[in-house]
C-alpha cells in the first residue's frame, strides 16, 4: 500500500480512538454523579450506590474506559436504563429507519445537485444559470425543519398524499414505509442539494479556467466533450469533500427531522436519551454516529486518490 491511503487509515483510526476518549471524558466530567443524574434528585443513596455498582462506576477510570471501549468493539454497548433492553437492540431497530432515510436523502441530493451544477456551469451567466442559482441560494437559506413543516402542510394536510408523520415499520410492507420516509428525505435533501449544486458549479467554473482546458479545446474537442472528459473529473475533489461533510450534516439533520415527523430513528433515540439522561444510550449512539462520520471521511479521502493520480505516488 502506498503512503497516502495508509496515512489516512492511521489518522482515521487515531481520530476514532481520540473521539471515544472525548465522549467518555465528557460524560465522565459531567457535573454530579451520573448515577444520581440518571435516577433524579429523589433517589435514595442506596439506589444510587446500587446503580453505580451496576454501571461499574466504582472501578478506576482507565479500567472503566477500557471496559467500555472493549464493549464497543464487540458491539456490546450495555443496557439502556430507560428501556431496560440491550442498547444494541435499540440501535439495530432504529437504524432500520435512520439509515434508509439518510441514504435516500443523500442520493436525492446528489441526483438533483450534480446535473444542476453541470447545467449552470456550462451556461454560466445566462438565464438558466441565474434561475438555478437563485433557487439554490434560496434553498441554502431554508432551515430543513421549517421546510419539513411546509411540506407537511402542503402534501399531508392539504393534498393528503402522504402521512404527516409516524412510521408504520418495515413489517407493514415496503411501500407504506417508504412513503412515510419520502417527505423527511425531501426535507433533508433539498437544502443539501442546494449547497452541493453551488459547489459543483463553482468547482467546474474554476476548472474550466485552467490551462489544460484550453489545451483540450486546441485539440479540437467541442465544448461539451471538454466538459465531460476533462472538467468533470477534476471538479470531483471539492464535490467529494462536500459530499463527505454533508453526510455528517444529514446525520445531525435526522435528529431534528425525525422529531418533526415522529420517526422512531436513531436521531430521535439520542435526543430522547439525552433529555431522559440515559447516558449509556447517549454515549453508544454518539460513538456510532462519530464512527460513521469518520468512516465516510476516510472513504472520501481514499476516493481522492482514485480521482487524482498525484495522490497515489508510486512507491
Amino acid at each position, binding site marked *: 500500500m*502506498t503512503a497516502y491511503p*495508509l496515512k489516512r487509515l492511521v489518522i482515521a483510526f487515531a481520530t476514532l480512538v481520540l473521539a471515544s476518549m472525548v465522549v467518555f471524558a465528557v460524560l465522565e466530567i459531567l457535573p454530579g454523579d451520573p448515577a444520581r443524574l440518571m435516577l433524579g434528585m429523589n433517589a435514595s443513596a442506596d439506589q444510587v450506590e446500587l446503580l453505580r455498582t451496576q454501571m461499574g462506576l466504582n472501578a478506576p477510570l482507565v479500567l472503566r474506559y477500557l471496559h467500555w471501549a472493549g464493549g464497543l468493539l464487540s458491539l456490546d454497548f450495555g443496557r439502556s436504563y430507560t428501556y431496560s433492553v440491550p442498547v444494541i437492540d435499540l440501535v439495530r431497530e432504529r437504524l432500520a429507519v435512520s439509515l434508509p432515510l439518510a441514504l435516500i436523502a443523500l442520493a436525492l441530493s446528489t441526483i438533483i445537485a450534480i446535473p444542476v451544477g453541470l447545467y449552470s456551469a456550462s451556461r454560466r451567466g445566462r438565464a438558466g444559470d441565474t434561475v438555478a442559482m437563485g433557487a439554490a441560494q434560496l434553498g441554502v437559506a431554508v432551515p430543513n425543519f421549517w421546510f419539513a413543516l411546509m411540506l407537511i402542510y402542503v402534501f399531508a394536510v392539504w393534498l393528503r398524499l402522504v402521512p404527516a408523520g409516524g412510521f408504520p415499520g418495515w413489517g407493514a410492507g415496503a411501500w407504506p414505509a417508504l412513503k412515510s420516509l419520502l417527505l423527511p428525505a425531501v426535507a433533508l435533501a433539498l437544502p443539501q442539494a442546494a449547497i452541493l449544486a453551488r459547489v459543483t458549479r463553482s468547482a467546474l467554473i474554476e476548472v474550466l479556467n485552467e490551462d*489544460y482546458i*484550453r489545451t483540450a479545446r*486546441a*485539440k*479540437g474537442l467541442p465544448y461539451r466533450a471538454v466538459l465531460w472528459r*476533462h472538467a468533470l473529473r477534476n471538479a470531483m475533489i471539492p464535490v467529494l469533500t462536500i459530499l463527505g461533510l454533508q453526510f455528517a450534516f444529514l446525520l445531525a439533520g435526522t435528529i431534528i427531522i425525525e422529531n418533526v415527523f415522529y420517526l422512531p430513528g436513531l436521531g430521535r433515540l439520542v435526543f430522547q436519551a439525552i433529555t431522559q439522561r440515559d447516558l449509556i444510550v447517549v454515549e453508544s449512539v454518539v460513538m456510532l454516529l462519530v464512527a460513521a462520520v469518520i468512516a465516510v471521511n476516510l472513504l472520501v479521502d481514499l476516493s481522492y486518490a482514485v480521482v*487524482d493520480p498525484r495522490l497515489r505516488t508510486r512507491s
Partner: protein
Amino acid sequence: MSLLEIDNLSLTIGDTQILKSIELSVAPGEVMGLVGESGSGKSMTALTVMRLLPHAARATGRVTFDGIDILTATEDQMCALRGDDIGMVFQEPMTALNPVKTIGEQVAEGIRWHTKATRAEAEDRARKMLDRVGLPEAKFPLSRYPHELSGGQRQRVVIAIACALKPKLLIADEPTTALDVVLQAQILDLLRDLVAESRMGLLLISHDLAVVTEMADRITILRHGEVMEAGDTARTLSGQLHPYTRQLAQASMHVPARARPHLVGTDQPLLQVEGITRDYRGRRTSLFRRAPDIRAVDDVSLSIAPGESVALVGRSGCGKSTLARMILALDRPSSGAIRFRGEAITGKSEAELKPARRDMQVVFQDPYGSFDPRQKVEKLVAEPLHVLEKKPTRAERREMVAHALHEVGLGQRDMDKYPHEFSGGQRQRLSIARAIITRPKLVVADEPVSALDVSIRAQILDLFAGLNQKLGIAYLFITHDLTVARAITAEVLVMHDGKIVERGKTNEVLDRPQSEAAQALVAAAPDLHRAIARRMQEQG
C-alpha cells in the same frame, strides 16, 4: 499561396481595443516569428486564429486558413480544424496538461477524435509521436501522468499533442519562456525539425528577439496591437529601419556603461561562504520509507569582496536560489559556514542577525509578488528600517524613503501610492529602493530582470550599475541569462547540480567555458548578434 493569411484584423474586448489592422501571413514550411513586449497582442492574435478568444471579444477583418474563412466558420468547422490542421503549443507546460489523465490518453485523445481510429491504433500513433518528440516508450510509457514529468518533458508532451496529426500550421505561443536556456534550445531544435519534416507552417510567438531571429524566416514586430514592421528576418534586423525595431534590438543587447568595478579596499572579503551544503529530506514513499535526501547545495564555497559584482549562473533547479536563501539567512545550511564581514551568520538567532541584515538586502524576481498589496509604498520601502538600532521617527522615515525613491528614479509623491499603481519596471525600482534604504554593503538579486520586457530590463540594469558606482554596493546576481551576467558582473560562478563547477572573470568564462555545464549554458544561450550574423549568411 499562403497557408494562413491575416488581413486587416482588429479585435476589441469590451471597450478595449486589443488589435488594430493586423496583417500577417504564414506559408507552408515557413517559420513566422511574431515578436512584441507584454501587452502587444501576440497571444490574442494566436487565439483569434484558433477561435479560442474570451466570450466578450469581437474580431473584424479577415483570417483565412487553407481557404477557410476562420472568423465566419461554424464552431463545428473550427473543431474539425483545431488539433487536426492547426496545432497549438502554450507557454506554461506545468499547467497545460490535465493532471488526472495519462500522457498516452491525452495524446491519443485528439487522434481518436479526428480520425475515428480505434483505441489501439490511436495509442500506437501516440506512442510513435511521443517517441518522435524525445519521450521514448521505454522510459516514458503512455501510462505516465503529467506530474511524473519535468517541465521540459511536459512541453514535449504538449508538442506531441499539437503535432500528432501532422498539422499544416503549428502555433507556438512563448513555448520556451518557462524553461531554462538548455531546455529552450532543445525544444526549439525539436520544433525546427518538425517543421522541416512535414513542411508545416510555424507561427512562433516570443518576446525574445534572439530566439525568434534564430528560428524565423520572416518576422512581424507588434506593439500595442499594431504591426510596427514586418519582413525577412535578416533584412529587418540588420537594417533596423523602424525606430521601434532598433529600440528592441538595442535593448536586447544592452550593456550598462560601467567604469572599472567599484572596489572599496580588498583586505577583507565582505562575504565568505565556506563549504556549505543543504540537504532536503526525501519525500515519504510509504509510512516507514523515505526517498533518499536531496542535496540541493553541495559543498559550495565562494567569497565576494566589498563593491564587487558576482554572477551566479546555472540551469533551473541547480540550487542557486537555495544558496541565495542561505546567504540571506532565510534558510539554514546543513553544514558549512557563512561569514559576513568576518562574522558567522549561520546558527544565529534573529536578534543577533540584525546587524548583518542591515548590511545585506535582497531584490526578488517577481515585481508583482514581492510587495504586500495591502500596504502603501512608504511602509513597504521602509520595512528594512526595522533592523536599525535606533528607530527613526516618522519624519525621518519619510525622509529616508523619499531619498531612496529618488535614488531609483521615482518621485516623493509615489510614497503614498499602492504597489498596483506601478508598472512592472517601476515595481522593480521600488524593490531596489527597499533594498538600498539601509545603505547595505551587499544586495542579493535573484533573477531581478528576467520577468521584465527588454526595454525595461535595460533601464533596470543601468540602475543596478549606477548604484554600484555611487554607493559601492556589492552584488550577488543570480540568473540563468548569460547576457545579464555579462552585462553587469565582473566575476561569474557557474553552478550545476548543487556544485560550483566553474568560476572566473565573466568574459573569460563565457567566451571560453571549460566545464561541460558552462559549455552547455553558453551554447544554448540565444545571442542576438550571433543569430543575426547567421541569418545574414543564410538569407544573403
